[in-house]
């Protein structure tokens, strides 16, 4: 708990100083390559000309209240982030859920009989997926299933969250969103599940050596019952924790895959901010992602306390 706050504090401090410690004119950086509203620039210059300490204290009072609007969209940055959170949650939530279910299943089958046929095949596949840039996989899926090559009809939309003009509040609209979700979600599921399967496999292989499994066998349990009742519940604990701890890696996928599929979430917003570069927006996004990851870490610790009786008492 304390650690999480210290980490957060450092993020906030880092975020403030990084952009002010730079050599040269910060205004130039803020306005790089943009034709700025002169009035806003004057405002910005006045804010940045105050003593550093005063600026810092103003910032600390409310790090989320940026006085500087997005230089690219000329809107308050947190308002934009608020709008873009939901598509990202939809995409990542679905992808993490599916990836952990499939990944854990694959990891169990592979880790229970290491060196067996399934293990060799699945470990080979997961290692290849693990080596893959997720946005490249996304681009390839787009070419094959959306544009269509080699006689494969392009079935899926090329991007976006819904067709233009679709009413996303009706059941038909939901189906439309679902249809748009298929390819980006598949991309992320394939990439994430590789990681989860490798973790679950290693965790189960560790459990296989434990003596309580020999006891379970000695009791006359079938191999499948030994696995389901004893090995898997124990191996799941570290795996589930690691899934939560890997949110930083999940964020990477969100940024590039949302870019490839023009999915209007935080990831695409990051890409748009980068092309500016839109410094106030980037700062806010960095803060936002850091908070999400720190929260996930905290949640992982709490989950461990709930599910592991050894920690609980």
């Amino acid at each position, binding site marked *: 708990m304390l650690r999480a706050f210290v980490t957060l504090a450092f993020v906030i401090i880092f975020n403030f100083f990084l952009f002010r410690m730079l050599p040269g004119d910060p205004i130039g950086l803020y306005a790089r390559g943009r034709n700025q509203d002169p009035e806003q620039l004057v405002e910005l210059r006045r804010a940045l000309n105050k003593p550093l300490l005063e600026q810092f204290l103003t910032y600390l009072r409310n790090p989320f209240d940026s006085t500087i609007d997005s230089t690219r969209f000329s809107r308050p940055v947190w308002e934009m982030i608020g709008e873009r959170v939901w598509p990202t949650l939809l995409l990542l939530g679905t992808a993490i859920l599916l990836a952990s279910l499939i990944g854990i299943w694959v990891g169990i089958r592979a880790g229970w009989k290491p060196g067996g046929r399934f293990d060799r095949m699945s470990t080979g596949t997961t290692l290849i997926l693990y080596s893959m840039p997720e946005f490249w996989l996304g681009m390839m899926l787009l070419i094959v299933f959306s544009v269509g090559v080699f006689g494969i009809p392009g079935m899926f939309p090329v991007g976006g969250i819904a067709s233009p003009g679709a009413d996303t509040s009706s059941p038909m609209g939901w189906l439309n969103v679902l249809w748009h979700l298929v390819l980006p979600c598949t991309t992320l599921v394939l990439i994430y599940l590789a990681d989860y399967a490798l973790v679950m496999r290693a965790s189960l292989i560790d459990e296989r050596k*434990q*003596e*309580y499994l*020999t*006891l*379970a*066998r*000695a*009791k*006359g*349990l*079938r191999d499948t019952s030994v696995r389901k*009742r*004893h090995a898997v*519940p*124990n191996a799941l*604990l570290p795996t589930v924790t690691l899934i939560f701890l890997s949110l930083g890696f999940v964020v990477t996928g969100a940024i590039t895959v949302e870019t490839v599929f023009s999915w209007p979430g935080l990831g695409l917003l990051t890409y748009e901010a980068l092309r500016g570069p839109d410094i106030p927006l980037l700062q806010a996004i960095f803060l936002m992602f850091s908070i999400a990851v720190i929260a996930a870490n905290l949640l992982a610790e709490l989950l461990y306390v709930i*599910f*592991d*009786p*050894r920690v609980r*008492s």
Partner: protein
Amino acid sequence: MTLLQFRDLWVDYSSSAGNVPAVRGVTLDVAAGETLGIAGESGCGKTTLASAVLRLLPENAQVRGEVLLDGVDTLTMKWGRLRAVRWSQAAIVFQGALHALNPVQRIGDQIAEPIRLHQTVPDKQIGARVGELLTQVGLPASRAKSYPHQLSGGQRQRVMIAMALACKPALIIADEPTTALDVMVQAQVLDLLTGLVRDLGTGPDRGMGMILISHDLGVLGTTCDRIAVMYAGQIIESGPALEIFDNPKHPYTRALAAAFPRIGDPAARYAPTGLPGDPPYPGDLPTGCAFHPRCPIAAPACKLGAPALIEVAPHRTAACYKVDQ
């Protein structure tokens, strides 16, 4: 009737460095209701021998010979039959209860598991049966709700005993059941185990059979009917427990007996104790009698040939050229 018979049992572990023999031709009987002690240093193959009874050896083990449990060879049994035999006919008290109990399952559920599986009592009475078993080992029935880490070492080992008794098996295999405990607790747990095995037998005239494995010859001498001493995967001496302890024939048994003297025995305080050197690595055994490099009375002949296990007195066998007959 003979409860358990090992017939020329060999167990090899295959590794990248070649085959490592752990058990080399053991023939041994346990009668119904009898308590057999198996003594020996770590690495002599006693745990492998015990695991072979219910075919619980690791995947890289190769087994030859027969293990007859109630006259049926468990090594060639079909899997379904073997699963039915496991725990209902022979149960195990493991060495380290901390690692042998599932850390995330309540102990009541772990005790109930074999009862439910083998259906020794109707489902409705399982809870009561678990309570009864816990009471028998001196734990309140409410302990069923605890997790293993909430119990002390001695309590955990008592849970293991309750679990082994759950299906009233004809044979209990206790593999160093007390080594992980304090000396004081060791004696109490051992008394509890031997007492329950004696009292809870399946018939009116016979108790449960038990194999008690230990490196402590003194403990075996006072709790067992018979003792078999193992060295480098072979039985090198066997006979009635007290006779073995008081009058060992094999020089190795003599060394073991001297290492665990009877408390209050003045002779033991002046006699030289202990054994030079370490037990041999099973993958690289010496020629001839495996014990000869450490033997105080080894003769040149001991390097050349391995002595057979022969009868040296009524009900007593030993494998040594220099044994006085």
